[in-house]
């Protein structure tokens, strides 16, 4: 059962209150410290935000995809690293489990994930493999009633904190997915520091050495690790990242608009100059267009329409580009102050670039969207 409209609005209002009062003012601190504090994660859990995508029957909130998009924007506007937790935990892990896990796995993990008693993360990329995800090197082999995992994963957001990993591994040409609990011996996490953005996301490289996973922890069927599990997780993750682009662009727009009204140069507020108005006009237009694409993808998701997949690719491609452009313009409006970490726009600019890379680079999206465009629109062209 999903939430009523009133319940949804109340829940989102509570998320706004928490993000504005407890997260936003501290986002720079989290970025500098390279960690998301425990009280923020607990706050997200207590308000049901970490269980937003999980149905009530498993202890979650049961938010519909469109409202979940709005929630992503709310949290992402306040702090990109906090939003990353939502993307990884609620989208990549929880939504994928909902779609592909068997009944026993859902009963075992979803209630704990819903209440934040367990944090989830998604381990696909490797030191040698990013976009070419099906060429992973991580191996598994079946031994008696267990699978033995060996290999390395890289760029795992919240890998340093998570209790449950979705791990994609290969045996010969067969790619499968596993639910791996952190308590299993043989798992070693190493923090990745020196990042452009996402600095407080506990990013990690994870080494698996003879990690014994029980047979019942295969996620989906053997052989569906890439075709269904990874693609499903990336679809959900990409939807969240699309909204994350809107979030950063909206935050940058708000900052530059406020600054343009207060900052004075040559005897006038800088917002009175037409060149600044032009930057703000472009930002407003791009933010509105970006949000509209996300809403369209969300509407397709609500109606379970397969067009949601391509519309999500389009939205992610566009909104990440918009986030980079608008946050760059915000830095421009701020001038010297925009290059200083005492103002938020330099962080927004750094964070925005990450969105063009994660959950499928812009170039991968262009390939997918270009192929889609040729299939769809070539048939509509008429030559005489």
């Amino acid at each position: 059962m999903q939430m009523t409209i009133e319940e949804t609005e109340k829940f989102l209002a509570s998320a706004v209150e928490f993000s504005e009062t407890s997260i936003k003012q501290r986002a720079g601190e989290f970025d500098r410290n390279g960690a998301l504090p425990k009280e923020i994660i607990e706050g997200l859990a207590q308000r049901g935000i970490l269980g937003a995508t999980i149905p009530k029957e498993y202890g979650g909130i049961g938010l519909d995809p469109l409202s979940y998009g709005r929630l992503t924007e709310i949290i992402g506007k306040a702090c990109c690293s906090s939003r990353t937790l939502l993307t990884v935990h609620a989208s990549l892990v929880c939504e994928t489990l909902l779609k592909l896990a068997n009944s026993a796995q859902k009963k075992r993990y979803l209630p704990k994930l819903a209440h934040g008693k367990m944090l989830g993360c998604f381990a696909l990329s490797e030191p040698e493999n990013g976009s070419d995800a099906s060429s992973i090197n991580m191996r598994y082999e079946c031994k008696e009633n267990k699978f033995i995992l060996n290999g390395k994963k890289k760029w795992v957001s919240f890998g340093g904190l998570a209790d449950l990993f979705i791990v994609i591994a290969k045996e010969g040409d067969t790619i499968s997915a596993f639910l791996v609990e952190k308590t299993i011996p043989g798992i070693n996490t190493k923090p990745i520091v020196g990042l452009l953005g996402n600095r407080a996301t506990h990013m990690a490289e994870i080494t698996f050495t003879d990690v014994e996973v029980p047979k019942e922890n295969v996620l989906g069927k053997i052989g569906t690790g890439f075709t269904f599990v990874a693609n499903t997780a990336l679809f959900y993750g990409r939807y969240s990242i699309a909204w994350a682009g809107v979030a950063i662009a909206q935050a940058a727009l708000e900052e530059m608009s406020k600054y343009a009204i207060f900052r004075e140069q040559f005897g006038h507020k800088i917002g009175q100059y037409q060149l600044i108005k032009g930057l703000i006009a472009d930002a407003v237009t791009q933010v509105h267009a970006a949000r509209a694409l996300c809403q369209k993808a969300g509407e397709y998701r609500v109606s379970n329409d397969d067009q949601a997949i391509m519309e999500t690719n389009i939205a992610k491609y566009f909104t990440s580009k918009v986030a980079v452009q608008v946050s760059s313009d915000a830095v421009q409006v701020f001038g010297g102050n925009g290059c200083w970490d005492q103002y938020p726009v330099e962080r927004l600019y750094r964070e925005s670039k990450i969105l063009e890379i994660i959950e499928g680079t812009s170039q991968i999206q262009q390939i997918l969207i270009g192929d889609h465009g040729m299939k769809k629109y070539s048939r509509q062209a008429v030559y005489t």
Partner: protein
Amino acid sequence: MMDEKVARIQIHNFIEEIIDAFHDGELKDSDNIYDKGFVSSLGAMRLLQYIENTFEVQVPDEDIHLKNFNSVDSMVALVQKLKGDASNANDN
């Protein structure tokens, strides 16, 4: 009851819609669409979503396997099975 012929045409037409733009072979219902390059494995998830939405079925986790989505024939069989299961459940 599901009309098998209608389902077959719908699935066939949907695959025709998402076939690689540069693929010019003729799609037969028995063709393995991945092996013959009609659709990349990225399309599997879209086919799952399409089947669930069009035929108003929930594909259970045990049936989410590439072999059930690799040809028009296999998808028709899957839909028939799921529709049969649903109708049997309603009868009981």
